[in-house]
């Protein structure tokens, strides 16, 4: 029942997105613009700085993710559909999980394009260990989405939510950024430093578990008026 509700919410978001593709396209384009801006800051005499690719990849994901979160929940504000969702006789936590999975999927698609692009543009051997990269990106994205979906949902009714989301989200997701960037940097060494990458994936997994539990627990009292 729980999973069914979550998947139903996910399917609803997916159906809306497939029709307009607005969030996917804007998020992708935004991520590309981020990469462009960073290329100016972190390329010296045609050569990217050491480990720059790792930072650029993760910052682009985090910034684009913030934008996507804002847009996804902005959509729910039109004609008060979020209230309708919350009034539905279903577990609140399931609704949260559905929304969160939507963000994870969206960011997954963005990363599918972003990672090869960063690898090419910054001469980074990101794909030396594809399975580890995939695990790192997946664990990091889930961690970001777990916190992001909760805060974006809480902020739907708040004033000045556009500024508030990054202000709240970035300090809380600092561990995700550190683990993601350091893990990717270890991956970029030749040969890839596998034990270090695995350790960062473990830290990310621990973060995911703790914060998912906390978010499932908090969503109910926070969304009750």
């Amino acid at each position: 029942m729980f999973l069914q509700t979550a998947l139903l919410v996910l399917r609803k978001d997916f159906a809306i997105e497939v029709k307009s593709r607005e969030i996917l396209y804007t998020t992708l384009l935004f991520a590309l613009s981020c990469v462009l801006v960073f290329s100016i800051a972190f390329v010296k005499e045609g050569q990217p700085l050491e480990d720059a690719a790792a930072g650029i990849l993760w910052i682009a994901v985090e910034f684009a993710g913030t934008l996507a979160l804002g847009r996804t929940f902005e959509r729910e504000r039109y004609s008060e559909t979020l209230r309708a969702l919350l009034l539905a006789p279903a577990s609140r936590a399931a609704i949260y999980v559905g929304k969160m999975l939507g963000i994870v999927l969206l960011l997954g698609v963005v990363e599918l394009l972003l990672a090869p692009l960063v690898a090419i543009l910054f001469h980074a051997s990101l794909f030396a260990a594809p399975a580890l990269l995939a695990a790192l990106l997946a664990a990091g994205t889930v961690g970001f989405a777990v916190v992001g979906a909760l805060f974006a949902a809480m902020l739907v009714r708040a004033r000045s939510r556009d500024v508030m989301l990054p202000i709240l989200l970035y300090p809380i997701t600092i561990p995700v950024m550190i683990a993601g960037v350091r893990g990717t940097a270890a991956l970029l060494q030749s040969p890839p430093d596998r034990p270090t990458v695995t350790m960062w994936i473990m830290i990310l997994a621990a973060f995911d578990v703790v914060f998912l539990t906390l978010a499932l627990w908090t969503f109910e009292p926070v969304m009750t008026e």
Partner: protein
Amino acid sequence: MRRAFVPMLLVAGLMLAYAPVMIAQGAYEQSMGLISKILYFHAPSGMLMLLSAIVCGVASALYLWRKSPAADRVAIASAELTALFGLIVIVTGPLWAKKAWGIWWDWEPRLTMSFVGWLISVSYLFVRKYAGPGSDKLGAALAVFGSVNVPFIYVSVNIWRTLHPKTTVVPTLPPGMRGPFWFSAATLFLLYLLLLTARIHLERQRATLDELYLAEED
């Protein structure tokens, strides 16, 4: 607490007045010189920042799941004090670091954690001030997430890089510095208690005033 407030205020005032004398008479640290006196201010403020952050986290959790308005008042009061003592910590720290390490700032675990912790406390105050209706629960969730986050930040930056004097510095202080240190710590702790009490009292009066307005309208 209210009856003890005025005597406590007097004691705290006297202690604050005497603390500089005591610090000036404390043992002179040879390698660092005068700049080492920052310790008497910096380390206790750091302890109080951590203490009030923990109080804020626990009070917020109580507010979120027990819906106790008193817990919310404690949370907002201690969030303000976290921001205040955090500011003292991250201003006095670099002043000392410039002399000791030759740099103002370094991204090592304790510094990063204090900075992020301070940022979270300030964003909590922002939420309470600017987010409008429902901001109390938003802030409470932020405080709970923030306090759970601190160990993660510590562990990850610890693996990433480690310069700050270890926590073992305080217990192993030379005898001439131990007296002034704990005196300063006690003084600041008393100040913290006074500020917390006064701030909670203010929130309580605001709540009472709101109730009275509502009663008047009905």
